[in-house]
């Protein structure tokens, strides 16, 4: 019982310290996104092979059901998938400018002949960085790291697409700009 109380207190303390909410604590809306059930896509690899007839990049399998705190969306009017995960990482919150480059290096390691696209966005109460390996020379995964100070939430957004780079860039900008929290 004592341990349970301690865990609850520590969890509350952590929450207060970071002030970063989970997705179930906010109402996230985005006009571009349509929420779907993770169980509707049991095999992400098969889904992409079916939907993207001439798929680009290497497709990595992912079990969306394992991401219990995340939400899965489809980009409206397409077969692109977006997984949004809340992140409570003190280092990221307190030292955004130094931590985001480490995330970029880890999520998009480069091999010979690869180039990375990175873009920073800031707006009313939010900042975000999105990045991917150009020309699908690696996987078809694209990433957005997003923080909204007003909403008190930090998100790791995985965007799985088959669109050309210039289309992806515009879409990722619009996803970031369309994030609203009530």
């Amino acid at each position, binding site marked *: 019982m004592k341990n349970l109380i301690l865990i609850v207190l520590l969890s509350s303390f*952590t929450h207060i310290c970071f002030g970063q909410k989970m997705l179930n604590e906010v109402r996230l809306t985005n006009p571009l996104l349509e929420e779907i059930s993770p169980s509707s896509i049991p095999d992400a690899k098969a889904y992409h092979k079916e939907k993207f007839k001439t798929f680009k990049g*290497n497709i*990595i399998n*992912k079990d969306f059901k*394992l*991401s*219990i*705190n*995340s939400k899965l969306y489809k980009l409206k009017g397409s077969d692109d998938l977006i*997984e949004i*995960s809340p*992140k*409570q*990482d*003190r*280092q*990221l919150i307190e030292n955004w400018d*130094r*931590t985001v*480059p*480490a*995330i*970029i*290096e*880890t*999520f*998009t*390691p*480069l*091999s*010979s002949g690869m180039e990375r696209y990175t873009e920073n966005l800031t707006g009313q109460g939010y900042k975000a960085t999105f990045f991917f390996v150009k020309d699908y020379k*690696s*996987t078809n*995964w694209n*990433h957005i790291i997003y923080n909204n100070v007003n909403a008190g939430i930090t998100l*790791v957004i*995985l965007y799985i697409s088959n669109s050309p780079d210039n289309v992806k860039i515009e879409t990722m900008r619009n996803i970031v700009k369309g994030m609203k929290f009530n």
Partner: protein
Amino acid sequence: MTCREELIDLECTTYCESTPDPDPDPDPHPVYYDCNGDHNGQAHMAACGCIGGNTGLTNCPSENDPCDGVRKGNELENNAAVNDAINAIKDNNFETGRKFFLSSNTAGGSFQLGPAITSGSNSAVDLSPFTWDPSRGYVIGHMHNHPQGNAPNPSDVMNGVNLAQMGSMPGISFEEVNLYTDNFAAVVVTSNYVYTVTIKNADAYKAFQNNFDQSSANQTWQNLANNYYTNTAGATIQEAGEYALLSMYGNAINLTRQNVNSTSSNMQLDINGSNKVTSTNPC
């Protein structure tokens, strides 16, 4: 027809006789001696020599020592030249590396630090070639910084002298391969941490290195790191990278970490039963 040569009074004489074909009654249990000299023994050759069977060794000696990674990391980073080099590169904006050399291919050779190699890039530095010969040197490992602060990636672990090639070269002795695997270290420096990779299981390491494909290894690494980072509350991106590396190569390598300004404080990184990265000092 089979022929055999016999040495008789220092003269070699060839005898030939017809070979019964096929053997009407093949011996189901042919005579076999293992590397320990035991009749039908179970010993086999590993990177460190003959192990298993009646040798009394189930693993190579260093593989049985849980302290091996931490001790080697501490010894290496207590070397004054290495420590100076760490401090010189920890805050560099470009990746800068050095190779570690042995002065000879025998156990008594002294440790030497190679010159600094700078890339002009913040995410790569080419430290090749990794040589093992008297003219270009006996490379025993390498170090470089990660300006972006990320944990070591698969290339950092697998770069080095190719063990399979080394083992198959006629001029390189078994003891030399053993010397290399016992002393290999890859050091990655960030502004916060010093990571050290050493070889835990030479056979497993050799197999990984022989089949290594940087592009596919990177994809596996990023996938594992992404899943860990997004699904583990409070996990840092460095921890996610460590998790990915240990998931891929944990049976082949020791991964240790210490704060960049400390000494003799390497901690062994492992994945526990709850699938989380832990750091302990097993020494």
